[in-house]
């Protein structure tokens, strides 16, 4: 029988929504038990939150002063130390999981399945390669521990209402001192979170400047949407890097996505494939974004977006 351990991503105060998505993925393995490991300085509240996720059987609370910033070099040995009790160890395919999980896998001397998008069996999964242009089925050896990251955009978050047991664990692992956290510069925003918002408005290079990007913010605010951007807009300095949607930015799956002034490079499309409805607004009728859009409008964004705000905004 499969025993899955999920490594919880959090910021010390709250669990990241990726945890409940990993739980949904793990639940796709027939008959699996699902445990969540919470590594923190004082994980009491986080462990309770994890215990309340539907489908979690047990929470391992691993408190350690070294877990203040969850650096891969310090977290990986602790995860590897508890992994022996499990058949699968999952993390999210967020920057946190991408950084951490291969380090865990190597410590356990196994390869990793990156970006699980579909569970076909306990050791059989689908995952995207080539920026999502190809989907492969991989089969893993059943006699080895399986380490994987979960493509969070492919899964709905598991609900609340669970009541898993919480177990405190002392982990005996040597933690290196060669890597130190210095600081985090986080974009402060009262807007909805890009990775979980049901509505997202993204702007591209056609906005032309940081000032003009205000048009995107203002439309997004009027419909309660999160704000994203194409790589071109980030590279041009209109918006910070954490707003990038695409192959190397965030992979998202909102119910409604507005691509405004975005041509639709394949790398951007990779990031929005799972969106419910894609609306494209672009001056260029030949822009590739129209090939994937559910609703397309050829027009000047500087004219269209204010009208749209007027019609839809509140």
């Amino acid at each position: 029988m499969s025993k899955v351990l999920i490594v919880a991503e959090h910021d010390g105060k709250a669990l990241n929504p990726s945890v409940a998505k990993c739980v949904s993925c793990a639940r796709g393995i027939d008959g699996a038990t699902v445990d969540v490991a919470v590594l923190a300085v004082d994980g009491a509240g986080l462990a309770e939150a994890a215990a309340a996720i539907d489908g979690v059987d047990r929470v391992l609370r691993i408190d350690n002063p070294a877990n203040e910033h969850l650096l891969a070099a310090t977290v990986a040995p602790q995860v590897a130390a508890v992994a022996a009790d499990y058949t699968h160890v999952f993390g999210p395919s967020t920057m946190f999981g991408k950084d951490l999980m291969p380090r865990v896998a190597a410590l356990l001397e196994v390869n990793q399945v990156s970006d699980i998008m579909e569970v076909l069996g306990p050791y059989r999964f689908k995952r995207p390669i080539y920026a999502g242009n190809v989907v492969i089925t991989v089969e893993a050896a059943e006699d080895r521990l399986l380490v994987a990251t979960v493509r969070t955009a492919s899964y709905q978050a598991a609900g609340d209402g669970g009541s898993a047991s919480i177990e405190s664990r002392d982990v005996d692992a040597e933690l290196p001192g060669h890597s130190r956290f210095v600081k985090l510069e986080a974009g402060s925003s009262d807007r909805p979170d890009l990775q979980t918002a049901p509505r997202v408005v993204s702007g591209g290079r056609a906005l032309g400047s940081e000032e003009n990007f205000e048009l995107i913010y203002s439309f997004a605010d009027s419909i309660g949407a999160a704000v994203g951007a194409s790589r071109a807009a980030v590279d041009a300095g209109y918006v910070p890097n954490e707003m990038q949607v695409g192959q190397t930015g965030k992979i998202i799956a909102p119910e409604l996505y507005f691509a405004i002034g975005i041509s639709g490079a394949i790398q951007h499309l990779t990031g929005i494939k799972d969106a419910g409805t894609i609306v494209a607004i672009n001056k260029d009728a030949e822009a590739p974004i129209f090939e994937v859009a559910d609703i397309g409008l050829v027009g000047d964004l500087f004219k269209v977006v204010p009208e749209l705000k007027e019609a839809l905004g509140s």
Partner: protein
Amino acid sequence: MKKILVGLKRVVDYNVRVRVRGDGSGVETDGVKMSINPFDEIALEEALRIRERGDVGEIVAVSIGPAEAQQQLRTGLAMGADRAILVRSDRDVDSLTAARMLLEIVRREEPELVLLGKQAIDNDNNQTGQMLAALWGRPQATFASKIDVGDGKLTVKREVDVGLETVEVDLPAVVTTDLRLNEPRYVKLPDIMKAKKKPLDEIDAAELGAEPDDGIRTVAWEPPAERQKGIMVEDVAGLVAALKDKGLF
């Protein structure tokens, strides 16, 4: 630093629209343009800039792949690497094995810094740098968007989901590069001529003692599910009507 080791993987060029073979047996690579993995090119560019600031003596480029990967190493030499090593392997090398091979090269070459792309754009795994750091027992600074070289340590700005995280790591270390670290230079013709004279050593993969790991095998390839064809609307009124029609407003 005395030496930086840079990984250069040969991959299908960024601009090629990759297709699954008609019989579903893999990805069509015949006659397709091959290039240095773009993230690895950024890694090499960063090494060159560190050298231009006088912070490193030698830059060694390494690739694991078929004989043809010599082309990518020659391009790396033309960009400015001092010498190159091809770990010759005619089969696909999994991430763990690649990390083990790189570790063996690290033991032979003793670089203070290994710079790799954060992921190869073919399999999009995003694993090898982290695995090498783990096996080596050294720090990793992944998804770097700025690297400052200090005395026996690096300060690295990393792209994370909420913004930018700064970490300090002792050397030796592994750093993987993100897109905004730099813009790689173009290779000039005289440099291509000069690169022909630079040393390019070949090592047989088997000689490095890392057996391929087939713990995870690919058994099927398919194109992704197509999205349904959408509609075009004439104006904002049409767009609003279509959105309301779908129950979205």
